[in-house]
C-alpha cells in the first residue's frame, strides 16, 4: 500500500456570502491547486462532500470538464472525513496517484433539520420536540459536567478561547471576542449550554490535494503525511444524538473507537500530538472530546483549561483556528477546514495562530448524527 501525502490545501472563508456553494467550492479548489503547484488537468480523481448540494461533482463545470472519476459523499458531520478517507484510500490502494477531496456547503440559518424519517426515526420523536440535535448535546454536557466535576464557567472559557482564536483567523465566521460573562449571560438554549456556547450552520468550502507519498517531493518541499483517517458508528450501549432509548449497560462513544483506531493505524499515541482539532458543536463537546480522543482523563479538563493548556500557547492546543464555534459548520467542508488548519500549523504557516516549537503531529476529530465519528492523524 502507498503512503499518502497532502501537497496542497485551500479554503474559502466560512461565513455568509452572495456566491453559490458551487462557487465557494471552485474557489477552494483553485486555492488548493495553487498551493500544490499543480493544474486541474493533473488531478486524476475527485471526491466531493456536501449536505445541501446533491452533486458536488458539478463543480467540474466551473474548474474543468476533464472527465475524471468524481464521487460524491454525504456522511452528516463526518462528510468531509469520508471524502478525505476515500481520497486517501484510493491512493493507498494504488488506483490513482493524485486526487482531490473537496467539501462545500451553504446552509440556511438556524439548526439543521430534516424529516425524522430521513434518519430512520419515528415521526412522534420530532413532533414531541425531541428531534433537536442541540438537546442531545445539552444532555451529554450536563451529565459529563455533573459526573466529572466540571463547572459551567469552563464551558464559557472554551467558547471564549475559540472566539478569541477566530479573531486572529481571517477565514473565520465569528471574529469578535466574547467575554465569559457575555457567553454565560446569553440565552439558555439547552441547559447548561447557552447560545454563545454553540456553533451555527453557515457557508464555506475547503479542499485538499493528496498524492502518493513517494512522489510528493515533486510538488512540495513540505509534504504533510496523512497517516490515518478512521470512521466509526455507535455501538449498542452508546447513547448518541437522535436516540429514542439507550441500554442500561453503557458503551463508550464512537469517537473513542475512531480515535483509537486512527492512532493505532498511524502508530502514534495521543501523547505525541502537538496540535488538535476537535468537533466543538458546543463548548461541552470540545471538553468531552478531549477525553474521548485520549488527550486527558475524564475531569482533568477543569484544571487543564483553567491553566490555559488548550490555548494556542498551551501544551494541548485545541481548535487553533477557532473551531466550529468561530467558523460555523458548513457540514461538507468542516472536516476539511480542520485538516487545512493542521496542514498550515505543521508547515509553520499559521501566522498569528502558529503553535510554537515546530509541531510535528496533528489530530482532527468530527462527530455528528446519528452517532458517527471520525479521527484523522497527520504528521510532517
Amino acid at each position: 500500500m502507498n503512503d499518502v501525502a497532502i501537497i496542497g490545501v485551500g479554503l474559502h472563508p466560512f461565513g455568509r456570502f452572495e456566491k453559490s456553494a458551487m462557487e465557494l467550492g471552485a474557489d477552494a479548489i483553485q486555492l488548493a491547486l495553487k498551493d500544490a503547484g499543480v493544474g486541474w488537468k493533473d488531478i486524476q480523481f475527485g471526491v466531493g462532500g456536501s449536505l445541501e448540494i446533491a452533486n458536488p461533482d458539478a463543480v467540474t463545470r466551473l474548474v474543468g470538464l476533464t472527465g475524471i472519476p468524481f464521487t460524491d459523499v454525504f456522511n452528516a458531520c463526518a462528510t468531509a472525513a469520508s471524502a478525505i478517507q476515500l481520497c486517501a484510500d484510493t491512493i493507498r490502494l494504488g488506483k490513482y496517484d493524485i486526487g482531490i477531496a473537496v467539501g462545500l456547503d451553504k446552509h440556511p440559518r438556524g439548526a439543521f433539520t430534516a424529516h425524522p424519517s430521513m434518519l430512520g426515526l419515528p415521526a412522534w420523536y420530532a413532533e414531541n420536540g425531541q428531534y433537536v440535535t442541540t438537546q442531545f448535546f445539552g444532555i451529554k454536557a450536563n451529565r459529563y459536567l455533573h459526573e466529572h466535576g466540571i463547572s459551567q464557567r469552563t464551558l464559557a472559557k472554551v467558547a471564549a478561547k475559540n472566539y478569541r482564536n477566530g479573531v486572529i483567523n481571517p477565514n473565520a465566521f465569528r471574529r469578535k471576542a466574547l467575554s465569559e460573562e457575555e457567553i454565560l449571560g446569553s440565552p439558555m438554549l439547552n441547559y447548561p449550554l447557552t447560545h454563545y456556547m454553540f456553533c451555527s450552520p453557515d457557508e464555506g468550502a475547503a479542499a485538499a490535494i493528496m498524492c502518493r507519498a513517494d512522489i510528493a517531493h515533486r510538488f512540495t518541499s513540505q509534504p504533510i503525511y496523512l497517516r490515518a483517517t478512521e470512521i466509526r458508528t455507535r455501538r449498542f450501549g452508546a447513547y448518541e444524538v437522535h436516540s429514542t432509548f439507550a441500554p442500561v449497560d453503557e458503551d463508550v462513544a464512537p469517537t473513542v473507537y475512531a480515535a483509537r483506531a486512527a492512532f493505532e493505524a498511524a502508530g502514534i499515541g495521543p501523547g505525541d500530538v502537538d496540535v488538535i482539532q476537535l468537533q466543538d458543536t458546543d463548548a461541552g463537546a470540545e471538553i468531552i472530546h478531549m477525553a474521548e480522543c485520549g488527550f486527558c482523563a475524564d475531569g482533568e479538563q477543569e484544571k487543564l483549561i483553567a491553566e490555559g493548556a488548550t490555548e494556542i500557547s498551551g501544551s494541548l492546543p485545541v481548535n487553533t483556528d477557532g473551531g466550529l464555534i468561530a467558523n460555523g459548520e458548513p457540514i461538507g467542508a468542516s472536516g476539511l477546514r480542520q485538516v487545512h488548519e493542521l496542514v498550515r500549523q505543521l508547515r509553520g504557516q499559521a501566522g498569528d495562530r502558529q503553535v510554537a516549537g515546530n509541531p510535528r503531529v496533528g489530530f482532527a476529530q468530527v462527530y455528528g448524527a446519528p452517532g458517527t465519528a471520525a479521527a484523522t492523524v497527520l504528521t510532517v
Partner: protein
Amino acid sequence: MQKALAPEISTWPDEQPQLIGSRCGDCSATTFPTQALCPRCSGDKMSDELLPRRGTLIAWTTQGFVPKLPYAGGETAETFKPFGVGLVQLDDVIRVEGRLTESDPEKLKFGMDVELTMVPFYTDADGDEVITFAFAPA
C-alpha cells in the same frame, strides 16, 4: 376528546399506562419503540414488552427554544415555555429519552425518581386534545 400523539407506543388510555418496547428472545436486549431486529445481536426474535413505569433520571437538559417543524406543539417564540428532556432508566430494563414535566434546572436532580405520565400537549385541527408521554417527579 383526547387522543395520543403516537397511539402505538403506549397502552394509554389504560389507567396506569406503560410504554411499549420490544425485547429480544435471544439476548434479552430491550428497545423503545418496538423494532423487528435486535440492535445488539441482529436476531429476529423480538417481541413486544411493556416497559416499567417508574425509574430514575440519568441525565437531563432543558429545551429553551421552539423546535423546528415537524414539531407539533404549535407555540410561537412568544408563547413557548421551555420544557425538560431527560434520559430515564426504567428499573434495570432500559433507558428511555422523553419530555419531563419539570423544566426548572434547580428542581431537576440526577438520580431523582420519576414516573411515566401522559400530559396534554396541544389541540389539533379537529379540536381534540393531543396527549403525549412525559416523566414526572415521583
